[in-house]
C-alpha cells in the first residue's frame, strides 16, 4: 500500500489522434511536438505538478513507444518520486484474457487497483490533447466546496462553433441540468473541456456498473457522465476562462503554435511561476548568422538560422539555410530547410528535408480559399530540389526533384 493521496490524476493518452494524419502515424497524439520544445503531454503533466498533484497515471495504448520513452521516469516534471510519481499504464494480460482499452472509461476501470493503491478521495481525469495552463487545485477546491460527485471544467465558446462541442446547460448554482453532445441547434454555449474531477468512491461505483453493461461503449462522455447524471449525482460545472485549445486537428495545432507567438493570445509560456517542463535534448545555443532575418518567431537550442524566419516556430536542431524563407510555419526537431527554399503555412515534421529552391505551402491569399490549408510534410520525408508542394496536403512520400506533388 502506498501512502494515501488526497488527489491523483489519470491522463488519457491512448488515442490515435487520427485527425492529425501523418503526424500521428508513428506516435501517439500526446507525443506530438508543440511550441518549440514541448510535446502536447507536457501541458497536462506540468499542470499536475504545478497544481501539487504528484501521482499521475498515464494511460497509453496507441503507438506508445515514443510516448513511454518521453515520459520515462518522469524526471523532467519532478515526477520521479519515491511516493507516487508518474506511471505509464498500458493494457495488460489478465487471467480472463487480454483486453485493449475499450473506451476512456474502460481505461480507468482496468486500472482501478492502481488508483485504489493510493486510496484517493478525488481523481482528476485529463486528456492529452489540450494546450492550456490550469490550476487543478482551484478546481478541486471548487469540487469540495460544492460537495459534488463530478466537476467538469467548462468554457463558453462562440455560439457558431458550439455545435462542435459537448455542451452543458448550467444552473446559477453551477449545477449541470442537462448535457448535449454536439447538438445541431445548441441551447448553450458552455462547452466541456474534457477535464473532470470525480469523488473516487462515486466514480468507482459507476465504472463498475458501466463495465457490467454490455450495451455501453465505455466512454466517459457518452456513458459514465450521463449515467451519473441520470442517477441524480451532483454534477457541477467549473468555469475556466484562461487560454485553452484542443489541438486535435492540423489547423488547430498550427493555430495554437501561432498563438504562442502572439503577446495577446493569452498563453504565456515564459511564466516562472507556472513553468511548462519538457524533456530537453542537450543542444548547443542557437546560431543566428549575419545573413539571417528573424522576427515574430520562436527559436530554440540547436537551431541554425541563416535565412529568413517570420511568424514561425523552430524546434531543436532545426536548420534554415541562407536565402531560405520560412513564414507562418512550424519546423519540427532536426528538420532542414535548404538554400532558397520557401516554406509557408506549413508543418514540417521531424528530420524532414526541404531541398534547395523547393516550395512548400502557400498563403491563404494566393489560392482558392476553399482549397487552402496548412501543408504537412511527414517525418523523414525529403522534398527534392525545386519541387512544389501545394497548400492543404499531407506529404508522406519523398517528392522527386523538380516535380509538383499531387495528392492522391
Amino acid at each position, binding site marked *: 500500500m502506498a501512502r494515501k493521496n488526497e488527489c491523483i490524476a489519470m491522463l488519457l493518452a491512448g488515442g490515435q489522434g487520427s485527425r492529425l494524419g501523418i503526424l500521428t502515424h508513428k506516435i501517439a497524439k500526446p507525443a506530438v511536438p508543440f511550441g518549440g520544445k514541448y510535446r502536447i503531454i507536457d501541458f497536462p503533466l506540468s499542470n499536475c505538478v504545478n497544481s501539487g498533484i504528484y501521482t499521475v497515471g498515464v494511460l497509453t495504448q496507441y503507438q506508445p513507444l515514443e510516448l513511454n520513452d518521453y515520459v520515462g521516469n518522469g524526471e523532467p516534471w519532478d515526477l520521479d518520486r519515491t511516493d507516487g510519481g508518474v506511471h505509464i499504464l498500458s493494457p495488460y494480460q489478465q487471467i480472463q484474457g487480454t483486453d485493449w482499452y475499450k473506451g476512456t472509461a474502460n481505461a480507468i476501470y482496468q486500472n482501478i487497483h492502481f488508483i485504489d493503491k493510493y486510496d484517493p478521495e478525488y481523481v482528476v481525469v485529463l486528456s492529452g490533447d489540450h494546450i492550456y495552463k490550469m490550476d487543478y487545485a482551484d478546481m478541486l477546491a471548487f469540487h469540495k466546496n460544492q460537495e459534488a460527485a463530478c466537476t467538469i471544467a467548462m468554457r463558453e465558446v462562440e455560439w457558431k462553433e458550439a455545435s462542435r462541442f459537448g455542451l452543458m446547460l448550467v444552473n446559477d448554482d453551477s449545477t449541470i441540468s442537462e448535457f448535449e453532445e454536439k447538438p445541431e441547434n445548441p441551447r448553450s454555449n458552455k462547452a466541456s473541456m474534457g477535464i473532470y474531477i470525480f469523488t473516487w468512491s462515486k466514480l468507482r461505483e459507476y465504472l463498475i456498473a458501466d463495465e457490467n453493461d454490455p450495451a455501453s461503449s465505455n466512454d466517459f462522455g457518452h456513458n459514465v457522465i450521463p449515467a451519473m447524471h441520470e442517477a441524480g449525482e451532483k454534477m457541477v460545472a467549473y468555469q475556466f476562462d484562461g487560454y485553452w485549445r484542443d489541438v486535435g486537428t492540423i489547423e488547430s495545432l498550427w493555430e495554437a503554435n501561432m498563438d504562442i507567438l502572439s503577446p495577446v493570445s493569452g498563453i504565456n509560456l515564459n511564466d516562472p511561476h507556472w513553468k511548462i517542463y519538457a524533456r530537453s535534448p542537450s543542444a548547443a545555443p*542557437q546560431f543566428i548568422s549575419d*545573413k539571417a532575418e528573424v522576427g515574430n518567431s520562436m527559436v530554440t537550442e540547436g537551431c541554425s538560422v541563416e535565412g529568413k524566419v517570420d511568424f514561425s516556430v523552430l524546434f531543436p536542431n532545426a536548420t534554415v539555410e541562407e536565402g531560405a524563407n520560412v513564414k507562418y510555419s512550424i519546423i519540427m526537431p532536426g528538420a532542414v530547410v535548404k538554400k532558397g527554399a520557401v516554406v509557408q503555412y506549413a508543418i514540417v515534421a521531424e528530420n524532414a528535408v526541404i531541398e534547395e529552391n523547393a516550395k512548400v505551402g502557400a498563403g491563404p491569399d494566393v489560392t482558392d480559399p476553399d482549397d487552402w490549408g496548412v501543408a504537412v510534410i511527414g517525418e523523414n520525408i525529403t522534398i527534392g530540389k525545386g519541387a512544389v508542394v501545394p497548400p492543404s496536403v499531407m506529404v508522406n512520400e519523398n517528392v522527386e526533384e523538380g516535380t509538383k506533388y499531387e495528392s492522391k
Partner: protein
Amino acid sequence: MRANNVLGIIHSQAFDSTIQELTTMRTFASVPFGCRYRFVDFPLSNMVNAGVTEVGIITKENYQSLMDHIGSGKPWDLARKREGLYILPPYNTSSASAAGYKNRVEAIYANMDFLRHSRHEYVVITDSNAVYNFDFNDLFEFHTEQEADITVAYKHGKLPKLENMQILTLDDNKRVTDVSINADEPGEVDYSFNIYVMRKSLLEYLVKTSVAHSSTSFAKDIIQANVDSLKIVGFEIPGFAAMIDSLKTYYNVSMELLEPENRKALLNAKNPIATKIADNVPTLYGENSKAGNSLIADGCTIEGTVENSLLFRGVVVEKGAVVRNSILMQGTVIHANAKVDSIITDKNVTITANRNLSGDPSYPIYFTKNIVV
C-alpha cells in the same frame, strides 16, 4: 585500458585568481561560458562521453554555485547508485596540510581516501579553466600504446599567462624529455593542458612522496622532477581547445564560438557537452528584432538589435536597444534604446533605458552580478 577503468578527478578552482571578476562569487568550474554552459561541463562531458563512470570534483571554497549546478549529476548521467559523481569539499582532517590545501597536490592528498576507495586502476585529472571536446578514449589508448607512466595532454600555441605552466620538449616518439616552468616564451610552444593520465597507484605514491618532502607543486614535483625516472609522454589535443588565462581571453574564446568550424568542434551533437537543464522557453524574437552573427540561449526575448554577441539564458533586449560584440550572462536586461558595445555583463545585470556603454573588443568592460547601470 578502458574508460570504465578510469577515475576522473576535476580540480574546480585552480587559477581562480586569474579572472577575479568572474570568480569572486564562484569557482572557476562554475563560471558561465558559451551561452548555456559552465566550465566544469567540458571536462565532465568529455569524461562521460568516453565512458568514465566515476568522477570526483575537488573544491575548496565558494563552491555553492558549483553544487547548485552539478546537483545529483543527472545531466551527465552520473546520478548513480554505483559510482557516479562526487563533490569533494575540503574537510578537516588531523593532517594540517589537508585542511587548507593550497595546490593540486595537497588537494589530492586531502582526498586520498576517495582515491583509495575507488575500484579504478587509472585516473584522469583535469582543471576547469579550459574548453575542449575530444575523445578521451584516444588519450587513454595512447597512454596504453606508449606504455607510459604519465600522459600529459598538450596543445601547441601561445603559452597562456598562468602560473606553473609547463612547456614540454618532446622527442619524435612523443616522450617528454624536458619541462620548463614559468618560462618567458613569447613564441608558440607545446604546453601542458593540465590533463593527466596515470595509474591511480602511481598518483597516490607520487602525491604521498611530495607531501612527505614538503614539495607539493604538481608541475615541479610530480611532472618536472620525474622526466627522467618515469616515462612521461605527450598527447596533442585534437580540435578546438582553449585555456582561459584572463578576462580578455575569456572574451576572445567566447567570440571564437561564432565561427562555425569552432562551434562544430566544440559543441557538436555527436559528443554533446551536457549542462544543467533550466526549463526555459524557446527564445522569442519580436516584431522589430534584428539578430545577426550571434549565439543565443533559450529563454531570451529579443525586440532590439543583437550583433556579434553571445546571449545567455533569459536575456532581454528591449525595443530600440542595440547589443554589439558583447557577452550578456543569464538574466541580463538591456532596456529600451540602450546601446552597448564590447561589454561583459555577469548574471542579472540591468542596463537602464537610453544608456550608451561601450568598451573595446581589445578591452571589454565587465559589469558585476546584479548591478543596475
